[in-house]
């Protein structure tokens, strides 16, 4: 069991690993990972949209897999966390970030950190052979056409309707 929380009734001392850096925090058991990132660690990239797991704006990587930070209690975090702030390599943007810029794949930008984190992990899932609900052959390597990208990104909502540019951005990053 990694980093078991030290409990004091309804508070806990946690040693989280965020973007490769250990961060020691004291939290209320009610705090979600999203709350701790935004309110205690000044990592405001992950956004609070619906706060009910319906919009995906809070998506971060948990041990490399995408997850909704708004539904994950901070005390329950075991894995390394990567946020949008941890994707770039120094001054070099992550290929998915670069593709979003090149394709103008956002308008207001509020859902964008979640879209990008989700896309980064989605591409990894596809590389690992994970099928989706629109994959015909569950046992073959999935080909990321537009229908696959749309289905796999359906957990990230965009109220501006920038989907028309998000899909090509992700398709380019997939190549």
């Amino acid at each position, binding site marked *: *069991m990694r980093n*078991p*929380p030290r*409990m004091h*009734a*309804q508070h*806990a001392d946690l040693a989280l690993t965020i973007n490769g850096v250990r961060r020691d925090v004291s939290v*209320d*058991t*009610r705090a*979600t990972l999203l709350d701790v990132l935004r309110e205690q660690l000044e990592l405001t990239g992950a956004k609070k949209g619906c*706060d*009910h*797991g319906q919009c*995906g704006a809070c*998506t971060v990587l*948990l041990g490399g*897999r*995408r*997850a*909704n930070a708004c*539904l*994950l*209690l901070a*005390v*329950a975090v*075991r894995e390394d966390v990567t946020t949008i702030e941890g994707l770039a390599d120094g001054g070099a943007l992550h290929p998915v970030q670069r593709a979003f810029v090149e394709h103008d794949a956002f308008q207001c930008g509020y859902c964008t950190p979640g879209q990008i984190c*989700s896309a980064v*992990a*989605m591409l990894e*899932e596809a590389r*690992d*052979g*994970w*099928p*989706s*609900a629109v*994959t015909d052959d*569950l*046992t073959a390597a999935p080909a990321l056409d537009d229908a696959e990208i*749309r*289905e*796999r*990104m*359906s*957990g*990230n909502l965009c109220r501006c309707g920038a989907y028309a540019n998000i899909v090509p951005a992700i398709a380019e990053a997939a190549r």
Partner: protein
Amino acid sequence: MRPFAYERAADAAGAVALLNGADGARYLAGGTNLVDLMKLEVETPGLLVDVRDVGTEIEETAAGGLRIGAGVTNGALAADRRVRERYPLLAQAVLAGASGQLRNLATVGGNLLQRTRCAYFQDVTKPCNKRRAGSGCPARQGEHRNLAVLGHSQACVATHPSDMAVALAALGATVHVTGSGGDRAIPIPGLHRLPGDEPQRDTVLEPGELIVAVELEAPVMVERARYRKVRDRASYAFAVVSVAVAVELDGGTVGDCRIAFGGLAHVPWRADRAEAVLRGATAGEAVFRDAADAELAAAEPLRDNAFKVPLARNVLVSTLEEVCS
């Protein structure tokens, strides 16, 4: 959200011991439903016992099946090559549910025990017999477009929201449970219960009992199996109607078959009457319609959800045509 204490269990016995006797305690797995309900104060546990480390493997059984640990995530389950090859119905159902990021948190045990998405259940300012026994059911006269048409009661017209459970009901899985009274095995269907006059009880589990694994028998009817889900948008929505179908064809004759509906009842609805019509019959649209009608004859739709009956009939018929073609 109300204050609560948090404990993390290393194994199933530890989880049962931690929870034992604690008033208002809950097991926490992925939390995608429970944490949401805590934010809404539908759930107000004083203690959470985290069981996400309990049962995280998928193992082969001596009988040629699979034993899926309760802590396996929905994402890992649908990605598992053995599940994709041998139980495509289950993989399809899991992939039809929620979103990629939710499936990576949600677990097999938690998926089975998720609560209804009935709007009144999730709104603490409204009466709800499931949330507060005896307080009444506004859904009967109110918003019930996506609620039950089969097996409901005066007290409750809620539906069970899981896709995975529908595939498990068709496959005839077994749920392994542990508790202070020992271990037991519960078949699906059989885990979930109809509301009757106790809608606050979703399942037959006793207080403190913990799901540790779901066991699948050796694979059958792999070639002709399909999970079909109808919803209000193309992805990332709960079922209006869903159906899990698996058929064995011998020439043009139906041998064994398995059918279960989602979105129609308080339980994943195994369609025994439809199966009985199909077994031994010559496959074709007429008999598929007879099978659907035999199952849906018992439907008692509410004011605004009568469309579900012909929808379920048509979805079953077209899915049978697809798998039998």
